[in-house]
């Protein structure tokens, strides 16, 4: 019975769900990056900057770890994607990596004496990671819908068709729109997180003002991406031949043919908008929980649209037959099943993360705390 239920097909879907979940958590946790991208514009005093950096700094490890786990899970479950995208779109991924190396140390070193490069340099590192990280990740993920220029040979070795190795994604308007939407969403979530975790009246007021502009920017870029996505040709997999073909309104069809995914997506969008609205109009400090949950749901649904319902999740616009699907890019049945057993621990992981998060965040950060006996770590 178990063997029938846990078929290879099931496992491939299961792991796409896990990868999608990790991707959606990553986008939510990029509120850290969003907050970092405003360290020059949001605080008006050094103390406020210290409060913001310390509030965000308590969570940078989560984002980082989620990125690493997302990479590891993608490698383990869909190794052909790992080989094709990372090896082919070399420069985009290297740029993303660079933006993350400088983040990890920036928190730890910025306020330490004798840090050689100076506090301003480490603040610049935080800003660069904050601005570039979400934008580049958003742009790279957009190629899941718009396609990339590569081909695979008989032994499935990747050959990129342009000498730009991934940077060409930056001249596609739809890719840019998703990159900017992710950046502004990260900034919206960053503001909502700061509002929730820093106890400072003036900072709160300024955050709410900035929230409005960033929300409008997010909505504009997101709508552009969404509308063009729904109207665009998509990369469909012919269920009989397994060949990848271009299908009109493929992603619109995916939403309509998977109503549950559509509901999740809409619930996500509503959650984000509610989180913003409740903060702006009702002075609530709990917007991050709605917007955060909304972000997870919306991104999760977008990933399901990219990979489910006979869709190529990493299409090649250069050579259609090379396009990757969750079936031709996945690990073997044995590996997926073994890892599925390991993945059962995820709820436990989520539970202890939640517990530790609540323990650390139960008291909001204040100026007094930063000046107090314990001082600030970052």
């Amino acid at each position, binding site marked *: 019975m178990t063997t029938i239920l846990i078929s290879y097909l099931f496992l491939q879907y299961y792991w796409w769900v896990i990868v999608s979940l990790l991707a959606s958590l990553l986008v939510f946790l990029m509120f850290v990056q969003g907050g970092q991208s405003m360290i020059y514009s949001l605080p008006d005093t050094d103390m406020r900057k210290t409060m913001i950096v310390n509030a965000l700094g308590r969570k940078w490890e989560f984002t980082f770890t989620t990125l690493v786990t997302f990479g590891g899970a993608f490698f383990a479950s869909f190794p052909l994607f*790992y080989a094709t995208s990372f*090896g082919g779109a070399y420069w985009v991924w290297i740029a993303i990596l660079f933006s993350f190396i400088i983040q990890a140390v920036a928190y730890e070193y910025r306020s330490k004496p004798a840090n050689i490069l100076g506090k301003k340099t480490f603040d610049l590192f935080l800003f660069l990671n904050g601005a570039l990280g979400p934008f580049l990740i958003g742009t790279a993920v957009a190629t899941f819908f718009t396609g990339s220029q590569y081909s695979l040979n008989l032994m499935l070795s990747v050959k990129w068709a342009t000498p730009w190795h991934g940077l060409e994604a930056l001249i596609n308007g739809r890719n840019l729109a998703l990159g900017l939407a992710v950046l502004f969403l990260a900034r919206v979530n960053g503001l909502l997180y700061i509002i929730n975790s820093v106890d400072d009246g003036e900072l709160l007021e300024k955050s709410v003002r900035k929230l409005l502009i960033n929300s409008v920017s997010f909505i504009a870029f997101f709508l552009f991406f969404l509308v063009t996505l729904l109207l665009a040709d998509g990369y469909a997999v012919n269920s009989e031949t397994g060949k990848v073909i271009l299908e009109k309104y493929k992603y619109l069809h995916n939403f309509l043919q998977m109503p549950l995914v559509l509901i999740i997506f809409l619930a996500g969008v509503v959650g984000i908008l509610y989180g913003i609205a409740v903060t702006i109009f009702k002075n609530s400090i709990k917007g991050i929980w709605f917007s955060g949950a909304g972000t997870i749901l919306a991104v999760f649904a977008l990933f399901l649209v990219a990979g489910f319902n006979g869709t190529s999740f990493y299409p090649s616009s250069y050579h259609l037959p090379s396009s990757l699907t969750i079936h031709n890019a996945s690990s073997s049945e044995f590996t997926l099943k073994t890892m599925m057993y390991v993945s059962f621990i995820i709820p436990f992981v989520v539970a202890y993360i939640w517990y530790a998060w609540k323990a650390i965040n139960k008291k909001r950060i204040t100026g007094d705390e930063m000046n107090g006996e314990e001082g600030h770590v970052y």
Partner: protein
Amino acid sequence: MIEHVNPALVDWSRAQFALTAIYHWIFVPLTLGLSFIIAMMETIYVRTGNEEWKRLTRFWMTLFGINFAIGVATGLILEFEFGTNWSNYSWFVGDIFGAPLAIEGILAFFLESTFIAVMFFGWNKVGKKFHLTSTWLVAIGANLSALWILVANAWMQNPVGMVFNPDTARNEMIDFWAVLFNPVAVDKFLHTISSGFLLASLFVLGISSWFLLKKREEWLAKRSMLIAAIFGLLSSLLVVFTGDTSARTLAKTQPVKFAAFEALYEGKQNAGLIALGVLKDSEEKLGKKKVKDFLFRIEIPGFLSVMTDGDRNSFVPGINDLVYGNADSTVFPVTEKMKRGKIARDLLNNYKAAKRQNEKETAADIKKIFHEEKFVDEIFRYFGYAFLETPEEAIPNVSIAFYSFHLMVMLGFMFILVCLIALYLVLRGTIAKNKWFLWIALISIPLAYIASESGWVLAEMGRQPWIIQDMMPVSAAVTQISTGSVMTTFILFALLFTALLIAEVSIMVKQIKTGPKH
């Protein structure tokens, strides 16, 4: 199977990965060991309630934090470089290699990153016991993450638990437990973490010695030294034990590496272990590579044979035997392995051609051969040799293997003495008076890093030309991008890592000079 590969691209890709790995390994061993030392100190604080122990814990915790961040950053790059620079590898074995990486993230990284936040920010926010538990969980998480990445690395040194699938042109896992309990993985994990414990102990001993030399923080320094000396001594003994078992395993799984780190060209019974030696180039050549001879050496007779399988009369094959064959000891020549590798590769090409031309029967017949045990054991296991052009390519750089091994071993034995003397002097209460020893302990810090890095240089350089032993050479694994791109990123990484390392050392030195907060 693969298109012509530019050797410069392979070299730069290797250089970039080596650069990242070497920098990463500067930070990781300290994290592995210091996390446990901190946990022990905090345990004493919680049990005794003595605030001085809290101050001590927090001091070492600050140094831990400075070191930890950069280790995390370089670790991220390593993980993704498998994809960016070794994409053929990522596909060829991703089915096996990716799983430990994913498990590492789910089981270990989240544990570490969640509780490290409690460890650093939770002093006044959570109870003492919860904080202590978090500190222990960080130590366990850090060492668990080492387990999974070492399982992955061990698989590259000794591929087990998989089968080749001609349809997907890759290896696929069929036995997870064989991968996890690969003898190389067990040895490697224990040897690596114990060497990390030892390095951290020497770090604590060295810094504490500096305080004693400066006549500052005596109470704290002596207590730190007591813990570090005990932990370091136990760890150093484990390092020697696991080093010995590693060598035995290595002699069976990677005999060329084994012969190279002893610069043993001619196999023999009753082979001696070189305790100390200096190499020189001889006139003789193996292919394009000059044979190494000894300028001088001190040898322990028969010990290499004993190390191999406990018997002085055991035959230890030398590099010549392993490359050109030795009928007496049934060692295959590399030319024979190359022939068999090419048979396997041609069969794979024929299978692909049959599939492409829709010759179903031919394809089915060939596929059957790939599943035959005899074919796998006698032919396919040499698949990687098909990519070699000359038998001598199977020889790693002998000088690097020899010196890295002997440096590591010599320093390892020296560290046992350092820990032993430290423990003796601390227990006698005379440690502060013995300045000569305090200086030795201080100097042991950089030496510990040299020993630790040497171990990895031996492990990785010693297995060349293979990325996966006998299955795939580095030249077949590399991503097909321009050499210029990899050169550029190598330079960028080198500049950034170096700048960050300088900043890290500078901050660390400043924090040490400042000392524990009052």
